[in-house]
């Protein structure tokens, strides 16, 4: 009679014999893939930005339109990221810790921004907030607030497309840590608020940090939705990402490359900061 060990034996041996080759092949594929798609283009872009020396780069970095785009991008980040972080954590807690009818609806709504094309998001926002024909837009206009073709719409569009990232990252972590720690804290006298700050938040911080990185990266790079609602007015409603396109279309490749590098540097900076803020598990 053959035992289970007999049945798997040869296969296991075979795998062990070719494991070095398999490992090397996998590693090569990964490196070539990354090289062709990430390292190569970024290196080439860096090279092209500095091809004519430092002066054009400095000119780009001190250009009024560039500085305005940088400022606008930072403003959008500063509003969208904290809001979506708070909303994302709250949403995750509701979805994981509470039980009620309609919970599934929230769950699927959280996936919606991932599935809808950003251009559609932009059009939908115009439909609602458009100054002339929008649903609530005219009311805002009467009270002196322009939403579409202005900063508020760009912030709204960014919030919409980056809505799910924190919640999606936090939900599985929250499920995994379970409720024991929170219950232990409340029995020890902690209020729900204290339990959240002292127990829940530290336990989910890695998920939150990763969600924040994704949110910020998407907010930096969002093109479609923001482009539709911004009107793309250089020096007024242009984010860095829109600025890249505008400079490129204006036959100013060095400015386009330089701005791209700034975007990449910001993304890396956010990644590094979040790494720093979340110490390794013990």
């Amino acid at each position, binding site marked *: 009679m053959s035992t289970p060990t007999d049945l798997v034996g040869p296969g296991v041996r075979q795998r062990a014999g070719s494991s070095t080759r398999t490992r090397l092949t996998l590693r090569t594929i990964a490196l070539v893939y990354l090289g062709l798609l990430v390292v190569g283009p970024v290196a080439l872009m860096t090279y092209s930005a500095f091809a004519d020396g430092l002066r054009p780069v400095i000119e780009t970095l001190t250009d009024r339109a560039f500085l305005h785009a940088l400022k606008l991008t930072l403003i959008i980040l500063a509003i969208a990221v904290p809001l979506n972080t708070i909303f994302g954590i709250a949403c995750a807690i509701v979805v994981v810790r509470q039980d009620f009818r309609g919970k599934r609806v929230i769950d699927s709504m959280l996936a919606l921004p991932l599935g809808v094309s950003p251009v559609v998001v932009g059009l939908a926002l115009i439909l609602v907030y458009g100054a002339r024909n929008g649903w609530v837009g005219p009311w805002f206009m009467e009270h002196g607030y322009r939403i579409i073709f202005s900063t508020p719409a760009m912030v709204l569009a960014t919030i919409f497309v980056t809505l799910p990232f924190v919640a999606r990252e936090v939900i599985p972590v929250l499920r995994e840590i379970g409720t*024991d*720690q929170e*219950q*232990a*804290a*409340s*029995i*020890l*006298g*902690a*209020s729900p608020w*204290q339990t959240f700050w*002292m*127990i829940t938040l*530290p*336990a989910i911080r890695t998920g939150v940090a990763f969600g924040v990185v994704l949110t910020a990266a998407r907010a930096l790079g969002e093109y479609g939705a923001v482009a539709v609602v911004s009107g793309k007015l250089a020096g007024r409603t242009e984010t860095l990402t829109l600025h890249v396109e505008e400079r490129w279309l204006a036959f100013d490749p060095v400015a386009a490359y330089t701005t791209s590098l700034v975007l990449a540097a910001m993304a890396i900076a956010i990644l590094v900061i979040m790494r720093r803020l979340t110490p390794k*598990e*013990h």
Partner: protein
Amino acid sequence: MGITVSRVSKRFADFVALDDVSVDVPDGSLTALLGPSGSGKSTLLRIIAGLETPDRGSVVISGRDVTGLAPQQRDVGFVFQHYAAFKHMTVRDNVGFGLRIRKMPKTEIRKRVDDLLALVQLDGFADRYPDQLSGGQRQRMALARALAVEPRVLLLDEPFGALDARVREELRDWLRRLHQQVHVTTVLVTHDQEEAMEVASRIVVMNHAQVVQIGTPAEIYDQPASDFVMGFVGRVNRLPGAYIRPHEVRICEPGEPGCAEAEVERFLAFGPEIRVELRLRENGQRLWAQLSATEQGMPDLTEGMVVGVDLSRARRVDEPAAAGGAR
């Protein structure tokens, strides 16, 4: 004083977890809630702690009706099966958590935590993180954390269930000694009858959402209120329509009046215990007898030998225990 649970019922959707349960836990006692999984024992403990709300009934702790109170206001300590250690805090911060919440001065917290760590034999581990501790150490930390706030009652939910057999045994002894030192009213939930017998001074046996017997370990063992209790607590031979404990089976001469004939199938002797596995000749029924090695007048038993067995101490199914002649 102690804990009084009166007529508590609780259902989860279609599942009845507790059905009109009343239990008294005397002040300062160590009481075990014993029952198979799904019997409602954990739900009862969680209702006492305030982690679940009963559909009906009331909970009184130390003379105070806590039925409507949140867990924070109940003054209880709770130890979870899987430790519920605060993973991002050191052992010191874990144990001091409740004291920090109560805004005790730092120097006092430090002193109290040191005392508690000594009590649970974790001195020297204060600056470690929970995942640098073994399971047994983590559970002792959880106990220190629960005791730190000087709760009126200590509630333990299968506290040793996730530990391996040897550590479990050590912790049982240790818990019993700790209880003698601290004297806090303690309720321990367990499905392990041996654990309940060894640790608790009182046992509440539960089955199917109800309390089936309350008594001292000896009462539960010697006078089980039903055949469920008899089968659940202690080892038992099941005969057609009757039960008998292995130590109540008496070996006699074949043909002796009142004795049935049986064949010795296996004979195991080690330590103070002799285990004889038998098969009744009349119906092929298998059972085993537990004999003491020092027992007098034991015939020399060998496998295949025919002996007499006296089953007169067997209890019929559903017959109250006292009639079985125990004691």
